[in-house]
């Protein structure tokens, strides 16, 4: 049963007179306990998509203009549309049912409060309880994310911890109310490779242990292959291909996905230059008509330059937004 079903989500930003379609009709479903990865280059709209799910788009810059975010509350027959929820109800959902961890563990922690206080804040906001109870829960969370000597670290300030420890504290904050859905927005980008592996392993372990769904946003294909069950590939605000990890990595259909995978270094092919994708991502404010990948695509035809490309025009049996897949 799907826990979260996003239908044709559109988030636009407004800059001077131009409209930037950062997320342009993206649909996605997430089942209970499932791990889904969203991959794409910088600026393809994957972070905006993730933030839109929690309705965290700053109203001064942009707006979610269309679509629906259907969320199945446990023990309730009908899903609710998060888009239609009043802000107050939405706030009680954030952190409690859906939590998020961010890219930069340094800037996403308040430099002036201890990590214990910040984790406790989430618990106090949603569950309450006496100070002693909350402190015990906080210690328990720190233990859960593998922070050694939690009794000591609970009163540490963010700058006193290493990057990996800070990200663990962030994860403890997000998990403190046992959410159904954890959205991880490039959780390992700011970390060393060895720490990266530890954090990913931790996320995978916790997902299984707590039975929550994980939405992992990254530009690292290796990370996705390791953690996710299903993958969505985004390009210029649109989903270009979606499938299981096997489908995407072994039988990529969209020319963009194929090019991305070709550009990965591997042990098999030593020496020689890595293939790159020619050209650059088009500006989201001036997207061409038709397929956004047209100017970089080896298979481009006249048809690609006219009108929006439907979900599965070449009948692959899953979402591949290309006529020549």
């Amino acid at each position, binding site marked *: 049963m799907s826990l979260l079903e996003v239908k044709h989500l559109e988030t636009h930003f407004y800059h001077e007179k131009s409209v930037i379609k950062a997320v342009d009709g993206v649909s996605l479903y997430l089942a209970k306990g499932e791990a889904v990865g969203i991959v794409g280059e910088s600026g393809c709209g994957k972070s905006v998509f993730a933030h839109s799910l929690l309705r*965290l788009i700053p*109203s001064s810059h942009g707006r979610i203009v269309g679509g629906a975010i259907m969320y199945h509350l446990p023990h309730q027959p009908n899903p609710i549309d998060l888009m239609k929820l009043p802000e107050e109800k939405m*706030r009680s959902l954030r952190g*409690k049912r859906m939590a998020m961890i*961010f890219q930069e563990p340094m800037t*996403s922690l308040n*430099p*002036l409060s201890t990590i214990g206080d910040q984790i406790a804040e989430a618990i106090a906001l949603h569950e309450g309880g006496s100070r002693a109870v909350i402190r015990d829960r906080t210690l328990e969370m720190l233990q859960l994310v593998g922070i050694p000597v939690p009794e000591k670290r609970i009163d540490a300030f963010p700058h006193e911890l290493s990057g990996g420890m800070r990200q663990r504290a962030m994860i403890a904050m997000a998990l403190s109310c046992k959410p159904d859905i954890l959205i991880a927005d490039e959780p390992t980008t700011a970390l060393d490779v060895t720490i990266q592996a530890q954090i990913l392993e931790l996320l995978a372990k916790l997902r299984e242990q707590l039975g929550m769904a994980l939405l992992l946003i990254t530009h690292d294909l290796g990370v996705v292959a390791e953690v996710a069950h299903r993958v969505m590939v985004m390009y210029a605000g649109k989903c270009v291909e979606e499938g299981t990890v096997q489908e995407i990595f072994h039988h990529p259909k969209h020319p963009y996905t194929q090019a991305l995978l070709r550009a990965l270094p591997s042990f098999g092919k030593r020496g020689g230059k890595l293939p790159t994708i020619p050209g650059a991502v088009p500006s989201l404010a001036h997207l061409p008509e038709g397929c956004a990948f047209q100017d970089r695509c080896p298979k481009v035809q006249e048809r690609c330059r006219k009108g929006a490309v439907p979900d599965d025009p070449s009948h692959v049996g899953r979402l591949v937004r290309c006529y020549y897949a």
Partner: protein
Amino acid sequence: MKVSVIILLLMTLTALAAPFLANDRSFSSLLSPPIPYHPNSTDSDAILTPPNRSHLLGTDDIGRDVLAQLIWGTRISLSVGLVAMSIALTLGIFLGGIAGYFGGIWDLLISRLIEIFSCFPTFFFILALLSFVGPSLLNLMIVIGGTSWPGIARLVRAEFFRLREEEFVKAASALGAGSFRILFRHLLPNIVRPLVVIASFGIAAAILGEASLSFLGFGVRPEDPSWGSLLASGEAYWDVAWWLTLAPGSAIFLTVTAFNLLGESFRNR
């Protein structure tokens, strides 16, 4: 830094202990006040006496002890400074915070209000207001506080503008924290340092403002001896009784300088 803290601590202690320091009756037989005069008790045998052993800073034109008046005046001057600044801080943080955090129409309205208030020559604005509401200690505090918030609001607005884009603000709202919680629990602690600086300069300005207003006769009532009103009453006798102007003048100078030095040292930290 050290000197100014010591001066201000002594001033505060003096203000708090004024009834025990200078009074014509003692509260217990053990503790007789070192200066045995009440600021409002007159002595027709000692009019305009220069500083001497029994009146350390002399007496004024109706025979009141200047030192006693100065000690009691500390209460008024310091409380005007502190209360006026608290009013200004409350208004400034509230309005500046709303403008900086919510932006949009709030920012537009509050920014225009700040600009309008900054356009008035503050001192004359205060004079005009006081002539409507009438001089009293409370009115003085409200009017000084109510006109010195724009600088604070501007600072808070600018800082919140910067801070609200920080990731940890988004992280807090992703955890379900509401706007006011973010404003006061997450943003405000991050700007305490500039606020302390602006507050200590502001207290100095408020004390000076009170002294100027009292000097002009718009300040506290005559029976409350503020430094400014002491200065005003001494002004008529400056050529025959120099101690009447020197004493309150030095007190004002010392306190204002101490607060300014304090602000300066906070700023340079």
